[in-house]
């Protein structure tokens, strides 16, 4: 083994030799090896780990990582129309300011005394989401919208005692895969057809499939294809008539203008709060929410933390803590209620800041702005010969399917050409849903100006004319 000169690491204060020696003396150990006496020699790694040479100076480290990351193109340098579960909305500067404060960033599981700020910020996030959703109970965020949906389905199974869930056939395939895996042990998933014209749920198919075995009827609103499901009340009525619960996946940024699912009968609402002040982060900025009415039986089924407000010994002072900490389940097979772990709290605080900045009017404005821009984009694309947009005849929120069959070109080719011209075209759906043939999922938000959209349309037109 080579002898390495002693390095003192900035992150490791006691690597200074003098301190080390003092502390060893205090413990009576001859060397740090003494502390590993329980590790059998056979399991001791007696060689150095074969890792890249360290970048000891911060300057070198920064340079290296930046050089790596500079190989990325971004939505700053390119015009981005991708959505499908990760969205480019404006991230308010105040959101970044709050979530990079060290007090929040580096806190964890302190008591509601020393970490009162965290509890209050999360309680406020849950409260504001409650306003948005028109529901009284919202959880502290979990990993992402997929987990939220899968968990919500299992909660519904436990609540009804019926282990079958009906989902739309055109649900996002990744989400379906997650729900299938997560529910593998107990809940059967069956798929309901969607109307070929509108893309909305086919109520006849629903009526056919639903039975006394069904515990959950689930749909996303807007759907994977960006379609606004306008039959929500009918769907939840059908579900309730059969003793099933209605679970809806919602996009929180749409709820300033769209009716909250609770108002058309949803029992549990779930989704992802990434649009609320969290950057795209290459898909690594997700956080899931689950919400319901304040029904004791339902509350008891949440596998995530719920923070409640409580009085302290000083009148007028707010304190917080875990609600129903030792939560029970009334359906015995699942009395473990899944698990509770570190998830996505800081994003919850961020989303709370977002909602506080926006207020009621801001949420109404942004919903309208997004819908108008998306509609405008669809209209412009539709004018291009060979392009059909939107493919489905229904109201859309921020995403819509664009079909290129008549233009005789594949989505892959279009996207390649768009990329060369500095545009990220919509997600290619041809593999996920072959029956849609050459279709792509375009996402337009409040950050797309009219000029951006016109540029997209012109560029596509150019590409097709080649």
């Amino acid at each position: 083994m080579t002898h390495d000169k002693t390095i003192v690491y900035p992150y490791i204060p006691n690597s200074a030799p003098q301190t080390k020696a003092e502390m060893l003396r205090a413990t009576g150990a001859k060397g740090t090896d003494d502390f590993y006496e329980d590790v059998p020699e056979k399991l001791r790694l007696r060689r150095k780990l074969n890792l890249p040479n360290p970048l000891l100076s911060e300057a070198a480290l920064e340079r290296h990582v930046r050089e790596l990351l500079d190989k990325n193109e971004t939505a700053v340098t390119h015009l981005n129309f991708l959505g499908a579960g990760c969205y480019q909305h404006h991230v308010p500067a105040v959101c970044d300011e709050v979530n990079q404060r060290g007090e929040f960033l580096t806190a964890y599981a302190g008591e509601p005394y020393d970490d009162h700020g965290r509890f209050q910020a999360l309680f406020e996030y849950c409260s504001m989401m409650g306003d948005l959703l028109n529901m009284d109970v919202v959880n502290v965020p979990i990993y992402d919208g997929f987990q939220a949906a899968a968990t919500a389905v299992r909660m519904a199974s436990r609540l009804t005692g019926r282990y079958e869930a009906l989902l739309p056939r055109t649900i996002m395939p990744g989400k379906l895969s997650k729900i299938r895996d997560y529910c593998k042990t107990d809940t059967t998933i069956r798929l309901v057809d969607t109307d070929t014209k509108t893309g909305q749920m086919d109520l006849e198919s629903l009526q056919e499939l639903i039975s006394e075995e069904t515990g959950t009827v689930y749909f996303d609103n807007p759907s994977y294809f960006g379609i606004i499901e306008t039959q929500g009340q009918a769907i939840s009525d059908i579900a309730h008539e059969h003793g099933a619960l209605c679970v809806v996946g919602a996009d929180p940024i749409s709820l300033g203008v769209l009716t909250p699912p609770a108002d058309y009968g949803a029992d549990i609402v779930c989704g992802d709060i990434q649009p609320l002040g969290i950057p795209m982060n290459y898909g690594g900025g997700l956080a899931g929410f689950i919400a319901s009415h304040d029904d004791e039986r339902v509350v008891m089924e949440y596998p995530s933390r719920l923070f409640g407000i409580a009085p302290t010994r000083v009148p007028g002072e707010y304190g917080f803590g875990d609600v129903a900490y030792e939560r029970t389940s009334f359906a015995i097979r699942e009395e473990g209620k899944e698990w509770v772990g570190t998830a996505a709290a800081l994003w919850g605080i961020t989303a709370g800041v977002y909602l506080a900045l926006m207020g009621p009017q801001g949420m109404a404005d942004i919903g309208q702005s997004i819908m108008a821009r998306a509609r405008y984009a669809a209209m412009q694309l539709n004018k291009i010969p060979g392009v059909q947009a939107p493919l489905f005849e229904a109201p859309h929120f921020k995403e819509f399917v664009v079909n290129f069959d008549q233009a005789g070109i594949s989505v892959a080719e279009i996207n390649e050409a768009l990329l060369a011209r500095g545009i990220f075209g919509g997600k290619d759906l041809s593999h996920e849903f072959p029956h849609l043939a050459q279709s792509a999922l375009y996402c337009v938000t409040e950050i797309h100006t009219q000029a951006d959209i016109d540029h997209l349309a012109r560029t596509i037109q150019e590409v097709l004319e080649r």
Partner: protein
Amino acid sequence: MKKQGLIKLGLIVNPAAGLGGAVGLKGSDGPAIQAEARALGARPKAQARTREALQELLPLRETLELVTYPGEMGEDIARECGFAPLVIGSIQAGQTTGTDTQEAARAMSELSVSLILFAGGDGTARDIYEAVGPSTAVPVLGIPAGVKIHSAVYATHPRSAGELARLLLEGRISRFREAEVVDIDEAALRQGVVSANLYGYLKIPFHRRLVQNMKSGSPTGEQTALHAIAQQVIDQMQPGRMLILGPGTTTRAISDRLGLTKTLIGVDVLLDRELIAADANEQQLLALLDHHPAQIVITPIGGQGYLFGRGNQQISPAVIRRTGIENILVISTPQKIVTLGGRPFLVDSGDTAVDQLLAGYIRVITGYNEQVIYKVNFLALQHFS
């Protein structure tokens, strides 16, 4: 804070409790043992322990009516702590017995006290049970003052007892749980023989922050565990195979789930979801075993985790042999296992051969699809301190 005039708190001190321990005697029931202990120089701890508890209640002095028995059974220490108690009943100083405890408790219950706070040991708990059990009416709480307390009606520390009492009387506690009163044969124990029986259950206050007091989980947490365990046992029942249910609330949960009643401190027999024998004795069990195979379902009793003690007259070694060791199902809430603090379950059936077969490691059902592997020792291996 509830405004309800003066709140009544009952206080009973067993002056002889804790007498034996300091001088190496086990327990202190009976005048003979007490005399021996005093001769050895023992001083009772009950008064000092009670003082620690009462100090927690001083803030409530103005709104509290402390009801207690004369002299060394509560009046003295109450006055010493600054209370002005209502003294009821009469005693013969220096010669108090369990009967006095029972009369005191009965009288206090009739006066509708909000809580009976008592200082003593297992014997005292049994006396309280005799007077005001089973667990429906007045809540009780024990201040530990005995040698080694097996009954779960005691707080783990006198201060905690006082604090729990105060919270209850302030109206800040609304939940209760059932706690075991255990019957330990002290004489047998002095001979190194374990003889533990479930005597009954009493209602004690529960507070989340002080949950460690009672060495157990919350009522809701425990309820869930009981439901889950019961469901698991029911799911593995076989047609034509009896379930011989030992005493305890854990086994009672099985009967509950099937809509049947259960003899809480006795042995019931179920067959194909029906109750075929209640509070059965050994003879009845053996007779039934002539006709059907069985599973014995038992739960550890008392703070020492006894699976089979010689006090279990019903589930005797003969019954165990006839059923088959492999057909013994042990069930327990996780909370109860934790209270053992790492000590193994104990068996002392009276038949060493049977004990040896049971010793080692055993599977314990602790929930639905949840089990624990736990150690079982038999008496010859066990040293009592």
